């Protein structure tokens, strides 16, 4: 199979990697780049566990052919917060108990961050909408929604 070179920005760093045309971005991230924080719960765009941010939008990386990421700016859970630092939404997820098994958590945080990057005053309907594609079987979403709301408030205070 002919492999191609994919060049893109990953968590702020330039990356070049050989991929085959049928590779999906989620597999390139997980298997080739060993960034396993991005999870795979279905591989079909049904669960949101693989959510990443590509050029500012939350997308299911299992539905993105890897070559579509050419020249894009991609953020994964590993790029959120930073050494010794947390993004506000990571903090509120921890403080408000929005985590159980944690398998949905990276995807939830990416969907939340994509929303909060656009607005720090989301309505609860906007939060529900932003998270509607992310399935969580453990939490019933209640504390997750509260955490996103609280993170927005934290971000507003900092502005």
């Amino acid at each position, binding site marked *: 199979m002919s492999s191609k070179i994919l060049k893109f920005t990953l968590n702020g760093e330039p990356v070049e990697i050989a991929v085959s045309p*049928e590779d999906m971005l989620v597999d390139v991230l*997980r298997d080739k780049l*060993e*960034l*396993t*924080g*991005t*999870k*795979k*719960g*279905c*591989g*079909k765009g*049904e*669960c949101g*566990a693989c959510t990443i941010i590509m050029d500012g939008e939350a997308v299911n990386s299992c539905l993105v052919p890897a070559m579509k990421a050419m020249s894009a700016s991609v953020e*994964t*859970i*590993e790029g*959120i*917060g930073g050494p010794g630092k*947390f993004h506000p939404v*990571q903090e509120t*997820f*921890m*403080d*408000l*108990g929005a*985590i*159980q*098994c*944690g*398998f*949905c*958590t*990276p995807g939830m*945080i990416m969907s939340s961050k994509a929303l909060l990057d656009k607005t720090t005053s989301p309505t609860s309907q906007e*939060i*529900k*909408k932003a*998270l*509607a*594609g*992310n*399935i*969580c*079987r*453990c*939490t*019933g*979403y*209640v*504390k*997750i*929604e509260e955490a996103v709301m609280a993170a927005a408030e934290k971000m507003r205070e900092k502005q």
Partner: protein
Amino acid sequence: MQSVGKSVRRVDAVAKVRGMADYVDDIFVKDMLQVKVFRSTIANGRVKKLDVSRARALPGVVVVVTYEDVPKHTFPTAGHPYNKDPKHQDVADRRLLTDRVRFFGDEIAAVVAVDELTAVKALRLIDVEYEQYEPILTAEAALIDGAVEIHEGTKNIIARSEYQLGDWEEALAQADEIFEDEFSTSTVQPCALENHGAYAYMDASGRVVVCTSTQIPHICRRVVGQALGIPWGRVRVIKPCVGGGFGSKQDVVVEPLVAFLTTVVGGRPVKLVLTREETFIASRVRHAIQFKLKTGVKKDGAIVARQMTAVSLNGGYASHGHAIVDNSGEKYRHLYDQLAIKFAATTVYTNMPAAGAMRGYGIPQVMFALDCHMEDIARALRLDPLDFRLKNLNKTGYTDPILGITVRSNGLPECIAKGRRLIRWDEKKAARRQQSGPKRRGLGMACFCYTAGTYPLNLEIAGARIVMNQDGSVQLQVGAVEMGQGSDTVFSQMAAETLGIPVDMVHLISEQDTEITPFDTGAYASRQTYISGMAVKKAAAEIKDKVLRHCGLMTGISPQSLDIADAWVVDHKGARVMPLAEVALDGYYNLACAAPFTADVTNSATTNPLSYGCTFAEVEVDLATGKVKVLEIYNVHDSGKIINPQLAEGQVHGGVSMGLGYALYEQMIFDPATGEPLNNNLLDYKLMTAADTPEIGPAFVETDEPTAPYGNKSMGEPPVMSPAPAVRNAILDATGVKFNQLPMNPHRLFERFKAEGLI
């Protein structure tokens, strides 16, 4: 209480928000081979011819193994503790691979290849011919005379059981009215977000090492040993982070096959992670159960006689089998009182996915039947449905005549009172007018009870080991399993509480490894805070005792007058004597008597308290669309003392959400002609999303259970048990229509409303 009862942050929170928590499929092992399973495309039949030669010839394929290449014996898979009595052992009806196809997706062959893509391609090169039989998808079809036996010699019956207490005829003769009704529940899937997966390899000494997403590492080790026919000590099971289980991982699903395959490829690591479509059909589902109830009641609402018969649909393999409906029969008996009671149940094989454990273990099913029936009786007798339940509840002091377990704490009456207040039951009932519009509102409630573990039906055993470090912090090892429910955090709180140290001085080892971690049967039956928690408490108490005695030696103060608080040894007045770290350090390095403080404790329980609770719901039903909107819902729990309020609320939120899915949407559908699953994916199988989840109000009535380590009772499974009947009773209140079958989806409601002339 310093640590217990506080909303301590999860000990795994940082790893999980950073994407650093490693689940099975996140772990890299050199030279890993990938496995794909060749599954049947019929539901009932036999393989006549199988040709794997083209698959074997595909470059990149290492080996193709079929039913002809695996051991001939059968093994059980249920996550129950081993029972030395053969009569009480789980049904051993599985082989690693089979030519006798028992459900659509049954496992015939396995491909091991260098990568997943090659393995998938190889599957397409396998040719198969079947002898087909009519798929059996209902109890009636399974039990009809001359039905094809799914397992030879069973007549498609896994087991039957019954009990009777009291004089039935005499009790029934006292009834003023007798009510009879039928209810049925649907086949649903746990849908843990992490699919089932495991990898296995052989170590240098020839042992088989299995790393798997499981709720039951020690049981898994035994079952892998049984499946491969090797001594259990030659199997090592490691459990990394688990992405939810809800019962389907209280079963041994993919582990025996990967363990076997690594032995075929000379010990090279092999990995099998199921796809979502496979997890739906090839792991475990919740039993659909059909119930018939008969209840004799006096005019004043006193129940005199109760009878239930149940038929449970189990799928193609027994897994947990009859234990599920037996549990239904048990809690049916525990909740309400009467003079005489009868129960009879049958579990049958069908050509559907194997049904096993799922959160609640037969109780969401039976509470749907029981508390809908109770509601109907109350309404027929024009009694207040709350008073009617309260009048008939079993009270504190109740001893179950069959199991011999005694209720020492029962907060259900207070739970009902609290739910009533929270939803403003009386106010809303009083304000309710005759409704005639297309949207109608109604109120409903339902109760449940549950145990904490499986005693006396099964062994209840748990281990905990604590080693105090030089700085006074401790390493805590438990055999109990974290799968998202928060057990690691509550065990850390418990150890901190008893030791008198802050929670961050407890270093809990979350990974389970049967070579290292103490013996415990695992995460199921909502047993861990109660059974394993007691092991932690005992181990912590032993460490504390050793610390104080050593401090006594160092200071000459009597150990009896010493205590530990905030990581200091204090005297009987609370004055600080010495930092704990100083005692610990001396324990390690005292030239004369060094002996680090360690404890290794097993707790074997012989008590089993009941937890209780109820759901109160208000719904709005849209007659024109059949849609049900949950306006308000409260789950009120007596789970004894709450160890971590935030985590407990999380259990309630998640359980209620799952219970609402059960009530309104979830159902696995099979083609009646072929047995093919029609919705084994997350698009067509409707799970609750953030968009459909209402406000969920968790509330607690904290009784103090005297047999528990910290007054606590079961908390994990209970929240899922009563939402469905509460919603059903609310729909009845709103529309006057009784829905006795789950799920109550728009299609079913719409059809009924049309038939009833409501639209």
